[in-house]
C-alpha cells in the first residue's frame, strides 16, 4: 500500500466533484429535501416520521454512493484513465481506498446536513443519538460505494450503470423491512432478505431509532455490513485488471 497514491486519488476524486457544483449540490442537498418532503407527507403523524426518519437518513447515502461510484468507475474504465493508472506504479487497493476516503467524506457531509435538517428543523425524535445515526449513514455510504464499484464492472454503458441502481437497490429497499416488517412477508422473501446487506443496514438504524442503542444484534448488523464492504471491495479489486483482452 502506498499512502501517497491513496491520498492523491481521494483528492483527485474530490477535485472532480468540486468542478461539478451541480452534482455536488444534488449529492449534499437532495436527501435533506426528500426528508423534508416525507415529513410533510406524514403531516400530523409525527410518530410515523420518527419511525421512518432515521432509516431514511441512513439509507440515502447508500443509494447515492452506489450510483455515483458505479458511474465514476465506469468513466474511469471507458475513458482509458484506468488503463493508464494500471500501467503506473499504483496498487489496486490504493486506488479503491482513495475512492473510499473521498466518498466517505462526501457521505459524512451529506448525512450531517440531512440529519441536521431532520433533527433541528423538522423535529425528528429518536431514542438513540443523532451521532449514531450519522455514523451508520457513513458506514452505509461505504457499503453503497463498494457495491457500486463491483457493479460497475458489469455495466457496459452509463445507461446500464444507472439502471443497475433500481436493479441492485430497489429489491433490497423493498425487502429490508422499511416498507413492511420482514416477518409479514412471504416466507421465501423473508429468507432472501437475510442474504441482502441492506437488511442489516436497516436493522441497525431501526435499533438505534427505536431501542436507543445497537445492542448485541445491532452490533452483529454492523459486523455484517463491515464484512460485506470488505468482500465487495475484494471482488471489486478483482475486476480491476492490469491486463485486458
Amino acid at each position: 500500500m502506498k499512502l501517497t497514491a491513496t491520498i492523491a486519488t481521494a483528492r483527485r476524486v474530490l477535485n472532480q466533484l468540486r468542478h461539478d457544483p451541480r452534482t455536488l449540490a444534488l449529492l449534499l442537498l437532495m436527501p435533506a429535501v426528500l426528508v423534508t418532503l416525507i415529513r410533510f407527507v406524514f403531516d400530523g403523524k409525527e410518530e410515523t416520521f420518527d419511525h421512518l426518519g432515521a432509516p431514511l437518513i441512513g439509507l440515502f447515502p447508500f443509494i447515492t454512493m452506489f450510483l455515483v461510484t458505479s458511474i465514476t468507475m465506469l468513466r474511469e474504465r471507458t475513458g482509458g484513465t484506468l488503463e493508464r493508472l494500471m500501467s503506473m506504479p499504483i496498487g489496486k487497493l490504493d486506488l479503491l481506498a482513495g475512492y473510499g476516503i473521498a466518498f466517505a467524506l462526501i457521505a459524512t457531509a451529506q448525512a450531517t446536513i440531512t440529519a441536521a435538517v431532520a433533527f433541528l428543523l423538522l423535529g425528528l425524535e429518536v431514542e438513540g443519538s443523532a451521532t449514531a445515526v450519522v455514523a451508520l449513514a457513513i458506514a452505509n455510504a461505504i457499503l453503497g460505494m463498494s457495491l457500486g464499484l463491483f457493479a460497475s464492472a458489469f455495466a457496459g454503458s452509463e445507461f446500464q450503470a444507472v439502471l443497475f441502481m433500481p436493479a441492485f437497490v430497489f429489491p433490497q429497499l423493498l425487502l429490508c423491512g422499511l416498507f413492511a416488517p420482514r416477518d409479514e412477508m412471504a416466507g421465501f422473501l423473508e429468507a432472501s432478505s437475510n442474504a441482502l446487506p441492506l437488511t442489516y443496514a436497516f436493522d441497525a438504524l431501526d435499533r438505534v431509532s427505536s431501542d436507543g442503542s445497537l445492542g448485541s444484534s445491532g452490533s452483529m448488523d454492523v459486523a455484517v455490513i463491515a464484512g460485506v464492504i470488505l468482500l465487495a471491495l475484494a471482488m471489486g479489486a478483482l475486476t480491476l485488471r492490469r491486463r485486458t483482452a
Partner: protein
Amino acid sequence: MNSATTTAIAVEALEVSRGGRKVLHGLDFTVSRGRITGLLGPSGCGKTTLMRSIVGVQIVEAGEVRVLDQPAGSSGVRGRVGYVTQAPAVYPDLSAQENLRYFARILGAPFARIEETLETVQLDGHSDRPVRDLSGGQRARVSLGTALLGDPDVLVLDEPTVGLDPVLRSDLWETFQDLARRGKTLIVSSHVMDEAGRCDDLLLMREGRLLASLTPLELRDQTGEEDTEKAFLRLIETEGEAQ
C-alpha cells in the same frame, strides 16, 4: 556492447487474439535503445494491440515481450514506460494542471516536472481550463504530457500527432528526437506514411504480421521508391509475388 545494453524491447513469437480473432500472428523483433522506432501500417493492422502488449496491459496468447530486460508490465518496469493511448486518457473535468498533478503524485515525480512538461507539450497558456474545453489537439497533448511526467526510459506513443497542425507536429517530432538524443527509447505508431522519414528505424505491419524491420534509408534502397507510401505498397507487392 552486448545486446542487453542496446536492446530496449525484445518481442518473440508474440501472438494475441481479441474476441476470438487472431490479431497478431507471431511477431519477432527488437527495438534499440535511444532510437525512435516508427510503427507503420494501415488502421486495424494490429499496431495498438502490439503497443498494449509492450506496455503490458494486453492479455497475450503466446510468446514473450521483454522491456528493459524485464517482462512487459512487471512492477519493476511499470514506472519506466510511458504510454499514450490514441484517445486522450485524462480526466476531462480536471484542468491540464490538475491532471498532471495527480499523475505526478502517483508516479512520485517532483512538481517542478509539471511546469517543464507543460512547456514541452506547449500547453503553458491553457493549463487552468478543464480539459473538456480544450481542442482535440490540446487534449492529446495533455495526454502526452502525462506520459512524459515520470521521465520514462521507454515511451510508447499511439498516433500522437493525429489531428495536429503541421507546425505543432513538427515541434513534437523535435521533442521526440530530443528525447531520443537523451537516451530515451520511443515507439511511435502512425498510419501517415510520411512520418516514416523522421524515425530512426521502421517496423512495417500489415494484417497482424511484420512486413519489414529496417531503416528509412534501407526501405528506399530496397524498393527504389522515394515516397514512403509507394515504398510500402511496393513491399506488399513483392511480398505477394514471393508467396
